């Protein structure tokens, strides 16, 4: 409950800030959308940084490091430090100057002018809004998940289906409403202030959490040395031989369990007697949690000492493969492929088949029904030493850890690492960032954000990456902190909940929500701005509506888009982070167009159309190839798909520009007067 109170106070503070900044609102649409070009260096730095750091900054960085190891810093963070500032420097300042001079509020206004084409807006508007929606979805959904996991057990009897915490749908709804309210009251000025406040909050709390967790793990050295001993591959980007050996052994044992379970549960051709089970338990060591099934599986697999040809059971290759698929909760293909009637699947073959929807929920709820309950209540009221009741999340975790195949250690691909550089190019085409750039008071305002942005990324990411890596090997009160297959994005919240006080857990949740909301607010605002400026005012005529009407329409459109996004968040809970990378890739694929529009006089209207169409065409093709984000590690030609999109759109744009009529002299004089 303490966490819930702290989160409530934090949200109330934000609302106060939004209302307060509205007192400075000048009542014009220009002030609402661009804060009248009045933002100074510090506010610009904080608002841009807060906007570009989404839920990924705290939750995703620690989660990805937990999964992939320390290499994620180079792949996601230091590359962004170089490329984001490059975009601010090469694109931001120029676009700001033209925006200031010619009165632009949106990217589409600039493109219409630069390319002398009204219809480019019709093409770009649905693409940009369509790409912003999954980005919004990440924030809306993550906020609900974070609030839900940190408030487990907060209610005595309500929300039992959500572990007695705030349901994710309610958390997402509250966060969306809070952001809507402060964006409505404060507009861009309120957004910049709120972003600054929230960026400070999540940076400070990130560092505080790092210090507290490292102390609980016995200090920096002890935490890192535990990783060196238990999971050395997490400290580099190759696979350590020790990890490879451990995995081979665990996979071997897991296949025994799969075969044993298949024979006794599905085929019903094997049933150990009580004497055989007693003998199996006697022979088996060590005694880790749920060791009995492993002991039985190992025993059942051993040949009879008196007749080595005889075994307690024997499966055909087809049955073995079906046993592996069943144990891993994967769909058994129908018809069953001939190659798997002949040979036995390796682990990577197994992963080609998707997991059955909801299988883990159904089985875990059935198997652990008696253990699940309010996390503050004792499992056995007569014997408190047996611990507390399990949450549904814990039951799912135990089920996954005891049923599914162990994770195979894998190296980070050098080509994927290199081509990940194309992903942060997306900031060059983020419509909400374009709007933030235009709020700057002068070109000199950009100096601080350009220099400090890589340092800020480092301050937030290095501690989070270390915490995520430590989580792979940490023990707490004598037991491993996380079982295998623990959801990576829940690592930080779970560590904070287990290892710190409720007060710090509440503050850290506020920090995570701050990171999420500082992106959502700008996105909400830019969506409204694009609708009014690029559609309503552009086609309705600028004299047709008063400023108040324009602001009103912007607010109404924001409500519609937030409602749609919220609706999506209730429907699609699974693929959100993978969708995020696809959404960034879509923006990156448009980067060549904005870069050429600023620096290449020969860019023509037809060239830009070709670039946009090829960008979206390749995006759609590759998205389909990746099974609509169902394959999280999908690569094309061994590279991140974004690399192909960027190269293809750039090539189409250049080729078509070179064979079509150059832009008019008037347009060139407007944008390239010095030449």
């Amino acid at each position, binding site marked *: 409950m303490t966490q819930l109170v702290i989160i409530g106070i934090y949200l109330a503070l934000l609302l106060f800030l939004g209302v307060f900044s509205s007192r400075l609102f000048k009542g014009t649409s220009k002030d609402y959308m661009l804060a*009248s070009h009045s933002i100074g260096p510090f506010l610009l730095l904080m608002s841009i940084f807060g906007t570009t750091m989404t839920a990924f900054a705290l939750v995703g960085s620690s989660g990805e490091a937990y999964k992939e190891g320390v290499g994620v*810093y180079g792949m996601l963070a230091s590359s962004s430090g170089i490329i984001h500032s490059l975009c601010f420097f090469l694109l931001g300042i*120029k676009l700001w100057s033209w925006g200031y001079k010619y009165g632009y509020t949106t990217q589409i206004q600039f493109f219409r002018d630069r390319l002398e084409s009204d219809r480019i807006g019709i093409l770009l508007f649905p693409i940009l809004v369509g790409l912003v929606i999954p980005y919004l979805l990440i924030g809306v959904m993550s906020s609900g998940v974070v609030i839900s996991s940190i408030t487990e057990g907060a209610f005595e009897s309500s929300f039992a289906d959500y572990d007695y915490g705030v349901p994710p749908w309610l958390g997402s709804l509250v966060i969306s409403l809070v952001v809507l309210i402060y964006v409505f009251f404060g507009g861009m000025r309120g957004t910049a202030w709120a972003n600054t406040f929230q960026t400070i909050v999540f940076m400070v709390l990130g560092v505080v959490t790092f210090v507290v967790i490292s102390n609980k793990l016995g200090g920096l050295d002890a935490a890192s040395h535990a990783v060196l001993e238990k999971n050395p591959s997490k400290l*580099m*980007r190759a696979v350590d031989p020790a990890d490879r050996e451990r995995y081979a052994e665990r996979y071997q044992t897991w296949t025994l369990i799969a075969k044993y379970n298949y024979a006794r549960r599905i085929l019903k051709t094997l049933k150990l007697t009580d004497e055989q089970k007693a003998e199996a338990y006697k022979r088996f060591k060590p005694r880790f949690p749920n060791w009995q099934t492993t002991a039985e599986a190992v025993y059942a697999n051993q040949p009879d000492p008196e007749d080595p040809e005889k075994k307690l059971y024997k499966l055909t290759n087809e049955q073995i493969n079906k046993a592996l698929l069943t144990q891993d909760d994967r769909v058994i293909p129908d018809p069953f492929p001939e190659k798997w009637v002949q040979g036995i699947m390796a682990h990577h073959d197994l992963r080609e088949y998707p997991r059955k929807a909801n299988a883990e929920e159904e089985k875990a709820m059935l198997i652990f029904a008696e253990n699940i309950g309010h996390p503050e209540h004792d499992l056995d009221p007569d014997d408190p030493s047996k611990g507390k009741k399990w949450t549904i999340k814990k039951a799912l975790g135990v089920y996954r850890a005891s049923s599914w195949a162990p994770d195979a250690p894998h190296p980070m691909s050098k080509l994927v690492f290199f081509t990940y550089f194309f992903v942060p190019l997306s900031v060059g085409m983020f419509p909400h960032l374009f709007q933030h750039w235009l709020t700057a008071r*002068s*070109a000199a305002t950009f100096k601080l954000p350009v220099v400090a942005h890589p340092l800020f990324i480092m301050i937030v990411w290095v501690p989070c990456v270390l915490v995520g890596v430590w989580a792979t090997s940490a023990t707490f009160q004598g037991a491993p902190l996380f079982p295998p297959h623990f959801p990576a994005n829940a690592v930080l919240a779970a560590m904070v909940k287990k290892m710190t006080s409720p007060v710090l857990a509440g503050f850290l949740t506020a920090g995570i929500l701050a990171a999420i909301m500082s992106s959502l607010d700008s996105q909400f605002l830019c969506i409204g701005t694009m609708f009014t400026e690029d559609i309503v005012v552009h086609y309705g005529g600028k004299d047709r509506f008063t400023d108040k009407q324009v602001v009103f329409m912007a607010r109404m459109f924001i409500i519609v888009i937030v409602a749609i996004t919220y609706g999506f968040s209730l429907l699609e809970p699974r693929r959100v982070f993978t969708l995020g990378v696809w959404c960034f890739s879509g923006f990156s694929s448009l980067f060549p167009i904005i870069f050429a529009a600023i620096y290449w006089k020969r860019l023509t209207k037809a060239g830009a159309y070709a670039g946009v169409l090829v960008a979206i065409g390749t995006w759609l093709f590759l998205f389909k190839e990746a099974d609509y984000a169902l394959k999280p590690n999908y690569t094309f030609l061994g590279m991140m798909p974004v690399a192909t999109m960027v190269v293809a759109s750039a090539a189409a744009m250049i080729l078509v520009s070179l064979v079509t009529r150059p832009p008019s002299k008037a347009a060139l004089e407007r944008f390239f007067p010095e030449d």
Partner: protein
Amino acid sequence: MRYTVYGLVVLLIIIHQDNWLWDDKRLILGFMPITLLYQAGISIGAAIVWFLATKFAWPHHLEEVAQEPPAQAQESGETE
């Protein structure tokens, strides 16, 4: 100097690809994985290079724009 700054940006992108540390699990100062330390160094290097960019490659002519009043509405160019 402007081209030196651009060259440094390209150099940063090249040395970011630290293939030589791919299988190095050493801990520096007892706790810091060498890969992470190196990449944190890249972040600091980026800040230094961008600082040099603001000193030697800054588009000063654009700062004059702010001395004019901002456009209140879009003065649209010739469109189709």
